């Protein structure tokens, strides 16, 4: 190659990646970063979206939200819903992964069960919500089984009584979400070198010792990164709660996403909804930062 040709080639190599990335960057810039700036600016305006020349509102909408007891109730419900979901997703995912990984079951059975255990994952949130509404109907099959077993005396209105509604939606979400952990942990289990266990056998280690000193430490990176992602995603859950309880009864299952949605599209208070959306964004960003740091440190 001549020098001129080579320098043109180099120029192409420098410009090319930006060209390949440009469609993605334009879309992410215009439809993700710009809207994020927009929602922040809405939160400082009076009658955002609804008026052409909204006036500056300062921190008014944030103050309104922080003074609203329903906001704090939603925050608490979100936290309960999310923490319980993540803990049980992890526990159930771990138990199922360990069971499926055991050499005590035959390989065909293992494969069939693996497919069946993943099932809840294949259903859309809306469908999961409808299924659980049917199961937990006062006259539904769950009540009927529990009554036959003598566990409850009378029919429970799981989704429509304030005492049980939050637990019921959390349970449905636990059922819907454990397969992500199961699949990831199963892949992790298969990656642990066999000699670790053989060495432990020679030392006479018991099964639970192998679990605590080999399996769990080896799986820790997966457990931490999936827990973080699961936490971020569960915090944002909307359709499951919207369809099962709609946030009710009497706000007992109101979470940040349904609270924000109602502010925006039932009360048409888009400014205050924007402030609430920004609060959710900040919580998510904080967790995301943590997640990225962790991934980089790995």
């Amino acid at each position: 190659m001549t020098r001129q040709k080579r320098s043109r080639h180099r120029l192409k190599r420098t410009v090319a990646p930006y060209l390949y990335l440009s469609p993605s960057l334009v879309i992410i810039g215009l439809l993700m970063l710009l809207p994020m700036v927009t929602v922040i600016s809405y939160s400082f305006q009076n009658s955002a979206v609804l008026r052409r020349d909204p006036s500056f509102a300062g921190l008014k909408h944030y103050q309104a939200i922080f003074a609203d007891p329903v906001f704090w109730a939603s925050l608490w419900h979100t936290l309960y819903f999310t923490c319980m979901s993540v803990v049980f997703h992890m526990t159930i995912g771990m138990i199922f992964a360990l069971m499926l990984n055991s050499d005590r079951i035959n390989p065909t059975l293992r494969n069939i069960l693996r497919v069946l255990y993943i099932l809840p994952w294949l259903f859309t949130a809306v469908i999961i919500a409808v299924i659980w509404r049917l199961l937990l109907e006062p006259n539904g099959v769950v009540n009927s089984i529990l009554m036959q077993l003598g566990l409850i005396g009378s029919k429970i209105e799981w989704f429509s009584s304030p005492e049980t509604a939050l637990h019921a939606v959390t349970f449905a979400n636990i059922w819907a979400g454990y397969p992500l952990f199961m699949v990831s942990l199963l892949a992790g289990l298969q990656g642990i070198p066999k000699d670790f266990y053989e060495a432990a056998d020679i030392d006479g280690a018991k099964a639970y010792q192998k679990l605590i000193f080999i399996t769990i430490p080896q799986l820790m990176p997966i457990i931490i990164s999936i827990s973080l992602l699961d936490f971020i995603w569960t915090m944002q859950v909307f359709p499951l709660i919207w369809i099962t309880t709609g946030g009710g009864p009497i706000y007992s299952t109101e979470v940040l996403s349904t609270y924000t949605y109602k502010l925006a599209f039932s009360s048409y208070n888009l400014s205050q909804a924007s402030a609430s959306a920004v609060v959710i964004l900040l919580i998510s960003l904080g967790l995301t930062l943590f997640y990225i740091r962790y991934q980089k440190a790995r």
Partner: protein
Amino acid sequence: MRKRHTTKDRLITVALHLALVAGLFFAAFPIYWMLTSSFKSNTEIFALPPTILPKAFTLEAYAAILGDPVKLRFFFNSYFVAFVVTVLTVLIALLAAYGFSRFNFRGKGSLNTLIISTQTIPPITLLIPFFGLVVSYRIFDTYIALILTYLVFTLPYAILLMTGYLNTLPRDLDEAVAVDGGTSWTALWRVIVPISLPGIVATSVYTFLLCWNEFLFALTLTKSTSMRTVPIGIQLLMGQHAFEWNQMMAMSVLGSLPLLLIYLIAQRFFLAGMTAGSVK
């Protein structure tokens, strides 16, 4: 090594299998109940004691759904939007992934971090500005509104998935094209794309699923019945006939078919997509 077939050992094996059955009940019973209820009459769904298998097997719920043009339109909308978004996403993501995988450039690290972090942006946060934009550009209640908004959620995942796949392909292949005087553009289409089909399929599957499952934006950015997608259709059905449980279950079964079929046919690709966001 431990001796096998001691009594204790056999007990553990039995206990494990009992636990597996309990797990199976937990995982599969709700789905079994959905499936069988869709073949029951409405009165039988709430029969006491509950019937495990439909006593009077009937397809009336399916006939009601499939014979209703309004409901068929929900399915058409869902398939159409998901298909268009999948094609666009895969094309755009392929280009970006090629840039990430085959070039070193200034800002690569921060752009990569940006794309990873966009995965976790709460949909509800973007909903309000999207609503403002969609209304002011007069595309409220149109396919374009759904396609554009879905694109922005599918793209980050698709880019990460495709980049991961392209990174597994040897670089000698496209370098051979460069030695022959070809450009990186030629290398992409002549060499990379033909051998990236598994990655492209996995990305398409995952993108399709994300679109198929979307609820919040379809709920807010469309209004007329003819623009609604399947998840919204199920919700509408619930509001209209709160007691037609067999129809709701039949619609749910039909709405789950694409996911179930993809899973059964292409389990490998499916799992690759589902765990993409979480496993580096």
